[in-house]
């Protein structure tokens, strides 16, 4: 009897030890999460033996506050947008991440100099540059829309539109479609007249727009024929184009690009593993690897040279990146300073506009 007891206790202890060796990562789902699983999770588990549990959310930033305030944090790492990372950090909801622990580039350049400008903040480490673009179904428009203004032109390009349900990126795109140059967009949007001008533009397509919330929805809406054009995260459209051979085309004019960053919620149950995961995932090789699975630009300079072909072994990734020179001709860097501050106000106004 005693033997059995000892044995079972030992087994339980082993069980607990095994259970403790894991890290829960929350991300955006769909083809984006697939790219992270392939580039980060699997090699991480192979190297460290720590299991990675992947969880999806429409926007991983939103559950963090509820979790931290309720004192019941169940995730260790979350993948969030820039403005959300700053906001959560300012509210004390994130663990600080010391940039000096991050691995240097292969040539020895320290991480603080190797990451793109602004890609490291007090609480967050950028992994990728992604972009909100608009895409269309080439079978419906063989000639194709070419500018942001075409997206808002229902007469020239009839059919339903898809847009993300929220103010961010939509207002910027509306202003660019209305002829505001990319470098003046935020100056215009600072003013009440500028915001109204953006909403007047959105009014033109309000009646024929379907509002999406999760990043996996827009390619689906396009594939179902529910919309003829939709805004989307560029990597999602790429995945549908290349992996599923859908007849979609991206219009890069007026794209709005920004970083996605890893953060660690305050009180993460596996803090050490979380830090290990962030260190591992943001080294030069891993960031370059992710580009093998989805067309998002790596957040480190040294990764750029390592980006080559898509996992099918023949598609060159360069031209599909939001940061490649020909795609940046009329592009807008999303301003976190603007959105950290105006997020709640503009979304409130957006909701009111939507409901009216």
């Amino acid at each position: 009897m005693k033997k059995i007891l000892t044995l079972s206790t030992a087994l339980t202890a082993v069980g607990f030890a095994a259970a403790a060796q894991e890290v829960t990562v929350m991300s955006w789902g769909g083809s984006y999460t697939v790219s992270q699983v392939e580039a980060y999770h699997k090699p991480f588990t192979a190297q460290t033996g720590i299991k990675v549990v992947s969880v999806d959310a429409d926007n991983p930033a939103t559950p963090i506050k509820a979790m931290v305030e309720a004192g019941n944090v169940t995730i260790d790492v979350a993948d969030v947008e820039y403005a959300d990372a700053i906001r959560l950090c300012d509210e004390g909801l994130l663990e600080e991440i010391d940039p000096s622990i991050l691995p240097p580039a292969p040539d020895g350049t320290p991480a603080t100099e190797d990451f793109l400008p602004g890609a490291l903040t007090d609480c967050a480490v950028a992994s990728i540059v992604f972009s909100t673009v608009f895409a269309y179904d080439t079978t419906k428009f063989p000639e194709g829309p070419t500018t942001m203004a075409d997206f808002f032109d229902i007469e020239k390009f009839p059919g339903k539109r898809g847009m993300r349900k929220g103010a961010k990126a939509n207002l910027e795109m509306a202003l660019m479609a209305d002829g505001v140059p990319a470098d003046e967009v935020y100056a215009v949007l600072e003013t009440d007249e500028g915001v109204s001008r953006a909403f007047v533009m959105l009014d033109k397509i309000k009646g024929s727009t379907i509002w999406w919330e999760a990043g996996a929805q827009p390619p689906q809406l396009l594939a179902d024929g529910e919309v003829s054009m939709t805004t989307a995260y560029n990597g999602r459209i790429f995945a549908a184009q290349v992996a599923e051979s859908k007849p979609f085309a991206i219009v890069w004019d007026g794209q709005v690009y920004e970083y996605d960053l890893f953060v660690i919620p305050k009180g993460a149950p596996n803090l050490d593993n979380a830090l290990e995961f962030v260190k591992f995932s943001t080294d030069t090789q891993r960031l370059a690897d992710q580009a093998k699975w989805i067309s998002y630009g790596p957040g480190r300079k040294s990764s750029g040279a390592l980006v080559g072909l898509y996992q099918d072994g023949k598609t060159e990734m360069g031209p599909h990146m939001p940061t490649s020179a020909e795609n940046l001709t009329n592009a807008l860097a999303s301003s976190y300073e603007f959105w950290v501050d105006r997020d709640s106000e503009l979304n409130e106004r957006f909701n009111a506009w939507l409901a009216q």
Partner: protein
Amino acid sequence: MVAIDTSGGEALGGGLLTTADGKPLKQALAHAQARARRKALLLVVPLLAFIVITFVVPIGQLLFRSVYNDGFSANMPQVSAWFQETEAGAEPDEAAYAALVADIVASAEARTIGVVGTRVNYEISGTRSLFTSAGRNAKDLQPPYREALLELNAKWADPQLWGVMRSVSSAYSANFYLAAMDLARDANGDIVRAPEDRRIYGMLFLRTLWLSALITGLCLILAYPVAHLLAVLPLARSNLLMILVLLPFWTSLLVRTTSWMVMLQEQGVINNALVALGLVGNESRIQMMYNQAGTIIAMTHILLPFMILPLYSVMRPINPSYVRAARSLGATSWTAFRRVYLPQTLPGIGAGALLVFILAVGYYITPALVGGASGQLISNLIAYHMQDSLNWSLAAALAALLLAGVLILYWLYDRLIGIDNLKLG
């Protein structure tokens, strides 16, 4: 049942009625009853505890949250103290600015400056960064603090900002209820209507009530004949049909909603069928989803069993001979229905309507998925403030108003029809 009147007993000159062991009967009875009551109480204690823990406490917390937000007061103690010492409307002096800077420095170090800024931002939007950017720079500020802070940003001298800071320096505030009713305070602290492009909640409350009433009505019209059919068929056949009602009822809400999406979308089953039959052109497919129509169709279907079941349970025991008797006395079938059958089903109608209506008022998943922009209900905005904007106080205030609305309707129902007439089976 024997009535025992002890005073009568005394009047008769006899002693009290006693039990065999000499205790007064009344006392013994009370004793026995008290024990039974205690036992009964013990049996319901688990339920009582369950209700208190899962229902009363959360609702209490929600109501508390709707008037309480210590985002500013808890993190800015010195300037809050200054507000308490001075009269309302007092010009902020150097001491006030010194307290403000000290608080901002401490708050930035504790990483709570974002909370402070967010709290003020709820009242005047666009001020969050005022606090966070000051938090980044406040450490280097030298006295005189007024000039130093104004040099960072001239907005710090704005009297409206100081008025708002004064009002949020107390953790208790009714402002979230004002916001939930599309009202706001102007620079003088008077209550005014919110700007037109921000008014949303009043309209959404009305839309929620109107759509819920419409869905209740549709459910009643659809459910009444079905329930009647189920009630008059022989049991074996009605059970078979009942399965058709119950099967969808047992299916997950999400599955049913997404199946409606398959049916209703523009390239969906219904539209394809209509196009194949030549009833509509391929170019003019009907938009049945991502608008109010989608919400109405899907919610009516999902809530239908909640109407059928109480109606059925009330109709089943109605004796068919009553209607036959009415007919044989010369009533037309309409009169027999109206004066004999319908009144007997009223308790079921009341129960079903109340059930469907209250469920519809709080529905959130179905409108979120198939409602698009025009089919959203107030619950979607509550969910938005809970999950996305994280303005829990506003979400709580909206939820409290919704709760109050439902309670008023319940009270009206009780006054007009009487809650005793409610029959679920």
